[in-house]
């Protein structure tokens, strides 16, 4: 069991390291000179040379990578080329705001979609299943910006319950942001839930058709007991990883939705820093996203271990 945890953690760290290298290389490999790109074509050669010096571009790439990683481990991601402030603090502020949306989204999306998916799976080919499957199909067929736009139309314009856009900057307090959180969270939850619902449905159907569930039924157990004790632990196994992937997806998904609502989160920061070519910020966000992705997957692995005694006792997959 310990060896399983250790192996998975080691693999996660390996992926993270590889990811950071990829991010670094991708950003470094951008065509053209970074300094020229930042300053624009009309910049004086002195200004370019000065920026190159301050960015350390005259040193070899591996040295810069090592420096960057060393800094990142201590929370130091360099300084923003645009604001001139430390990237770490900036990103943390935006990230905190996004986390507020993310937590609400995850709470709603995961509980709601699991319930719906399980119901659809249990009522296979009957009306609850048809209804849920159709709604989830529409949910996954409509892009986030459309859901967001429709929500604004309904709940800000037609029924003025929530603000359509956020008027505060990144340093807004939770109290200031709270009224504006719900619509973005709902938009994200709709899209995210659609996938989890479908996955949970398929998985429940598979497990309900298994021999051990039939045996449990033939033991004379109640349907509730059969579902909760015998079916669900195995049915949730494949869903776990889908949830993990979707939670990781949120970090990209927020980019669009935050843009629609002008919400001061990490997605908005991502967009503006791409527009401004603020490379240290882009690198930092990419690395943090990778950490979130790896952490979600690791959590799913450990969750799978809790549900599957095979992994616990033998330590092999």
């Amino acid at each position: 069991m310990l060896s399983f945890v250790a192996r998975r953690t080691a693999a996660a760290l390996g992926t993270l390291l590889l990811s950071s290298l990829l991010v670094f290389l991708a950003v470094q490999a951008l065509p053209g000179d970074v300094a020229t790109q930042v300053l624009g074509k009309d910049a004086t050669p002195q200004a370019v040379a000065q920026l190159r010096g301050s960015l350390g571009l005259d040193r070899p790439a591996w040295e810069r990578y090592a420096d960057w990683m060393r800094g990142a481990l201590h929370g130091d991601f360099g300084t923003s080329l645009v604001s001139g402030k430390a990237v770490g603090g900036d990103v943390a502020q935006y990230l905190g705001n996004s986390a507020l949306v993310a937590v609400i989204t995850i709470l709603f999306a995961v509980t709601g979609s699991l319930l719906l998916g399980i119901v659809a799976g249990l009522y296979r080919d009957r009306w609850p299943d048809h209804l849920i499957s159709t709604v989830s199909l529409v949910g996954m067929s409509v892009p986030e910006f459309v859901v967001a736009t429709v929500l604004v139309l309904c709940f800000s314009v037609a029924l003025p319950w929530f603000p359509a856009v956020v008027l505060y900057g990144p340093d807004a307090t939770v109290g200031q942001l709270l009224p504006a959180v719900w619509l973005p969270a709902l938009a994200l939850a709709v899209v995210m839930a659609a996938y989890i619902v479908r996955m949970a449905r398929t998985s429940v159907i598979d497990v309900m058709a298994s021999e051990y569930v039939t045996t449990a039924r033939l033991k004379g157990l109640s349907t509730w007991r059969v579902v909760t004790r015998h079916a669900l632990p195995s049915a949730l196994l494949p869903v776990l990883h889908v949830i993990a992937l979707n939670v990781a997806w949120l970090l990209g998904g927020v980019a669009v939705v935050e843009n629609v609502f002008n919400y001061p989160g990490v997605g908005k920061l991502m967009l503006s820093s791409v527009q401004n070519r603020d490379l240290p910020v882009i690198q930092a966000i990419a690395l943090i996203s990778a950490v979130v992705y790896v952490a979600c997957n690791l959590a799913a692995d450990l969750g799978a271990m809790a549900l599957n005694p095979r992994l616990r006792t033998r330590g092999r997959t």
Partner: protein
Amino acid sequence: MTPLVSVNSLSVAYRSGGRDVPVVREVSLEAAAGRTLALVGESGSGKSTLAAALLGHLRHGSRVTGGSVEVDGRDVFALPAPELRRLRGRTVAMVAQNAGQALTPSMRVGRQIAEAGGDIPVIDLLDQVRLPRPAELARRYPHELSGGQQQRVALAMAIAARPKVLVLDEPTTGLDVVTQRGVLDLIAALRDELGLAAVLVSHDLGVVAHLADEVCVLKSGRVVESAPTRQLFARPAEPYTKRLLASVPRLDDAGLALVRESGERDIRPRAVVPGDAPVAVSARDVTVDYGRSRVVHGVSFEVRRGEVLALVGESGSGKSTLAWALAGLRTPSGGTMTHESGDLARPAQRRPMSLRRRVQLVFQNADTSLNPRRSVGDAVRRPLRFFRTAGGRAESAERARRLIADVRLDPALADRLPAQLSGGQRQRIGIARALAGEPDVLVADEITTALDVSVQAEVLRLVDDLRRERDLACLFISHDLAVVRGIADRVVVLRGGVVVEEGPTEAVFAAPRHPYTRRLMAAALEPDPDARPPVEVTPDWADAAQEGDVWTDHGDGHRARRWRPADTSATPDAPDTPPTSIAEGVS
């Protein structure tokens, strides 16, 4: 005495493509307390559907189209859901076919037994199914138990609430013979202790003869014949029953049994292998490793042209590993394997083409041995083209049709896909594909295990014909001594990757010398309720082979590995050892 179970002209059908397809047609039967009723039939006979119907359970999409099932005086399909639930487990309980899949993987077995109801402590139940250290066992998960232990747990679960009727769906299929014997004896004992009415579903006539009081033979959902066991086995009335019985290979057949349409058996004398027949394959001290564990420990044998050598053993004995090594799919870690035209100790890809085609493998499972997306003609043509044993496209198509005819199939089948063929037909195509390389060595890896008994008889006959016609050296791998009896010229018995006994078939079956061989023979079930174990079993023994003094010779090439009666402290093989080696996957 009123019957506990009575099925009255029951019909069950499932819907497919808008039509009702009947699975069970107007079946009537009865089972009484303390008696065992066996439902016997080949695949597609509807026996499992019938068994589940006794608990009021039908598969998704199936429904009752007529008749009724009464258990303990209640019509199970008319019961409201809560009462049906009470009936299940407390009045009628089921032991499913494959305990490995019938136990919930995420629950400890103790809890699974406990929730089946009843007032008997789990420990006592586990004790009742003769499981050692029940307290510790109850805390395990299903995957931590061996196949035999899982089946015993399933039995404990079924008898937990002290039902009156026990339905057993192929309770021992997939278990090794010795384990099977143990589970069957346990079932008989429990039935007598608890006064149960047992309904046993099986395809295995040996199991039925051993356990049942009455037998009901099913074919395509209909009852063909129904009679007390002794009467049915001694004087079967229907030709179908006769044929079925005659197809079962027996331990005392002196040659291959050929079954006539009327159900009579003719024993074909064994083909005589000339004394000067050349050796086609010879293995010397072969060892094979999977990672760090060794699954074959220094095995030696020779097969001559025109000879059938049987490798017999239980799962984990290394017999299939040896087959794969010969076919070039596993590289031996030691010893030599040679063919008259080259070295076989190399993987297939590095053998010269001329050698590669001369050793061909036929697989156990005909369902997966043919590519489902390619016509069976394609499957036979490919090796013809690949080994360049046929010239052009037209010639290879013609040769493929002839090969298909050679395995006694209609050449018109060449255009079919494997899914459109029956299991026996697919296995014949597998043999035709192996013959396409014009081999002189055929390695047959459990080729009849997955087949119905009547189809098995046909395939055995085909293999026997082919070795006569083509002078093939055949390595026939099986777990079933009775199957081997009719076809093999010589037998090698393997246990844990070691040869324990070898010799001419007649000699080994007449006087098995090694206790393991004797145990295998004693555990084999004959289709005869009055069959006595053919040999005495030595319960405790220990290996006594030493470097340079391994064999006890019994003359005429018959020899057994040295052994001695054991002091009681060392039991060499507990009946239910948990699965350990990866080798089981291929064995």
